[in-house]
């Protein structure tokens, strides 16, 4: 009994249960609407794993949502609800694009400049939310929701400006090639590169057909950095203390307002990193007019929830999320079932993540019952 209880107490167990429920509900819905769940899931898994190119695409697509997920998870750990990751992402991609177009330095300088511009924009945008909360006590969810829209229109405004707008398109110019963080982007289209790749079809499939970039490495590093910051440093302890109990933290001599501001700056910077890396790493290396949100930030919210706000968890949750979204497209193209079944599945997973948070509590009860029987 104790053993079962211990397994059930582990966070990962509830998460896996939630994911299984997601698949079950999706299967029921598919079956009820006349599609074969087995065929659908086969199509999905083939869409993720059957070719190296697909796996590569899933990893590329996971990069921004791992980072926005990390941003949300970090804020959650410090007691803040960063619904503004969407806006921070947008602001970052805007400023990364501006700097990427206007500046043309050698890559060693250009890439850091472009990425820093984006990170800085995200951090400032996060800081606004943190400042308004710390100084005026305005709920971070309201300011975030409002600022997301401001960011969307600001981005559209920048796209419309003559200096950035590419004529006859709904987008800006692409950023200068020196800002690309795509791996071997010059070599892979050069004659020698193509000649070499022709002899190595697997690598060619990945390198030529997908935008392999350094993003995922940066994301993994960030996950580690944030883990260390939260769990191994004084600053992290202060931030978490403020999140856990503001009054107790204040009593212990921690400056609550300063920590709220710092937390939002860091969260904004992480979401900003996602935006900047998307501009430098992925086609079309520019921003376009948006009619609605592209959901990088909002998907980050789901990622953080599935990850139970653990930084390492965000890495896996982000990969899962990207896999489902990317592989899910194959469901529609192969068996014709609406690909939105994936959105229902993700919604169900998140729903059961909420429900299964009580599994550890139940496990405790189970363990106690076990003790009683033992006596």
């Amino acid at each position, binding site marked *: 009994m104790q053993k079962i209880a211990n397994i059930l107490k582990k966070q990962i167990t509830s998460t896996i249960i939630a994911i299984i429920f997601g698949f079950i509900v999706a299967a029921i819905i598919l079956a009820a609407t006349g599609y074969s769940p087995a065929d659908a899931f086969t199509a999905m898994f083939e869409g993720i794993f059957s070719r190296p190119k697909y796996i590569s695409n899933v990893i590329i697509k996971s990069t921004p949502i791992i980072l926005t997920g990390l941003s949300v998870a970090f804020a959650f750990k410090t007691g803040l*609800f960063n619904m503004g990751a969407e806006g921070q992402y947008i602001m970052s991609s805007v400023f990364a694009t501006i700097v990427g177009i206007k500046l043309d330095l050698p890559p060693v300088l250009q890439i850091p400049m472009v990425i820093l511009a984006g990170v800085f924009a995200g951090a400032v945008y996060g800081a606004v939310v943190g400042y308004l909360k710390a100084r005026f006590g305005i709920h971070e969810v309201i300011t975030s*929701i409002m600022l997301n829209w401001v960011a969307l229109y600001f981005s559209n405004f920048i796209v419309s400006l003559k200096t950035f707008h590419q004529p006859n398109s709904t987008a800006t110019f692409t950023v200068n090639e020196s800002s690309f963080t795509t791996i071997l982007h010059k070599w892979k289209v050069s004659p020698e590169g193509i000649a070499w790749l022709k002899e190595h079809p697997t690598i060619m499939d990945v390198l030529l057909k997908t935008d392999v970039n350094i993003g995922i490495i940066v994301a993994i590093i960030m996950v580690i950095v944030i883990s260390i910051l939260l769990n191994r440093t004084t600053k992290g302890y202060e931030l978490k203390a403020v999140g856990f109990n503001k009054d107790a933290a204040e009593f212990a001599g921690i400056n609550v307002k300063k920590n709220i501001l710092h937390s939002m700056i860091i969260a904004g910077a992480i979401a900003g990193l996602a935006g900047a890396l998307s501009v430098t790493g992925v086609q079309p290396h520019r921003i376009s007019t948006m009619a609605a*949100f592209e959901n990088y930030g909002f998907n980050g919210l789901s990622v953080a929830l599935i990850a139970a706000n653990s930084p390492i968890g965000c890495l896996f949750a982000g990969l899962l999320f990207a896999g489902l979204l990317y592989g899910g497209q194959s469901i529609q193209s192969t068996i014709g079932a*609406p690909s939105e079944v994936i959105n229902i599945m993700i919604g169900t997973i998140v729903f059961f993540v*909420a429900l299964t948070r009580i599994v550890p509590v139940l496990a405790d009860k189970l363990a106690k019952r076990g003790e009683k029987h033992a006596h």
Partner: protein
Amino acid sequence: MLTKLFLLIGITLMYSTPLIFGGLGGVISERSGVINIGIEGMMTIGAFVGACVGYYTENPWLGLLAAGAAGGLIALLHAVASITFKADQTISGIAINLLGSGVSLFLCRLFFEGATMSKPVPHKLPKIFGSHVSNNLLKNINVDVTVVLALVCAILLWFVLYKTKWGLRIRSVGEHPAAADTLGINVTLTRYVCVILSGVFAGVGGASMTLAIISNFTPTAISGQGFIALAAVIFGKWSPHGVYGACILFGFAQALTVLLGGGNFVVPSEILSMLPYILTIVILILFVGKSSAPKADGVPYEKGSR
């Protein structure tokens, strides 16, 4: 001049109506102690079901009713999670948002030959002065019947919350469920009713978009209104009249944007579009400041806990 003013009023009311319904839904749920961040998803479901039933039955009123029922049904999920299972209400609400848009688009593809847009409904909900108005002034404030419905709902909810014993019960459950429980109020039942009602309001709000303002469901028919409504709940300090005011203010700012954008105004339209959002933040800084939620908002009730 008067024509312009009437037009401004008309557009203000039009924009604010879906928000008011969503906001009222938020108020009733949170007043009973359950955070409802899933308004957006409930509105999306309402928007789709309203348009779909309105199209197939050719009766917009049936569509509106069905939208309310659908909103209530998905809210039931939120209620089960957050009341019975004592789940994290924020997470459950976000799940509702994901499910709302997922289910709507999935069903839309099934019912409308694979399209994510429904076909336009044959009859929209009526306007208050009927469809044939020749007077130019009246034309501008010939608003949808949902505008009146929203006002009636806001007044009703205010009356119920502050002037009836049910309202007192709801508020006490949201402030201090343990005290309410000792007085013999059924905390669980009260919260269930309130959360389901919040879904009904949100569903109707969604349908007021697709059955009155536009005439079909599109993936962007509900894009953020639920979140604006959520902000309005906090802005309006968790009261029906406060939320009504907050939504009208927001609608007014959007109407200004539309009217100013129409003329040859120097400011680019993208910058103008930011106005409602920036205005909300500025007003919060200047006048509202800190607002405090009902004490037990978001806290699951455990019998015997203090």
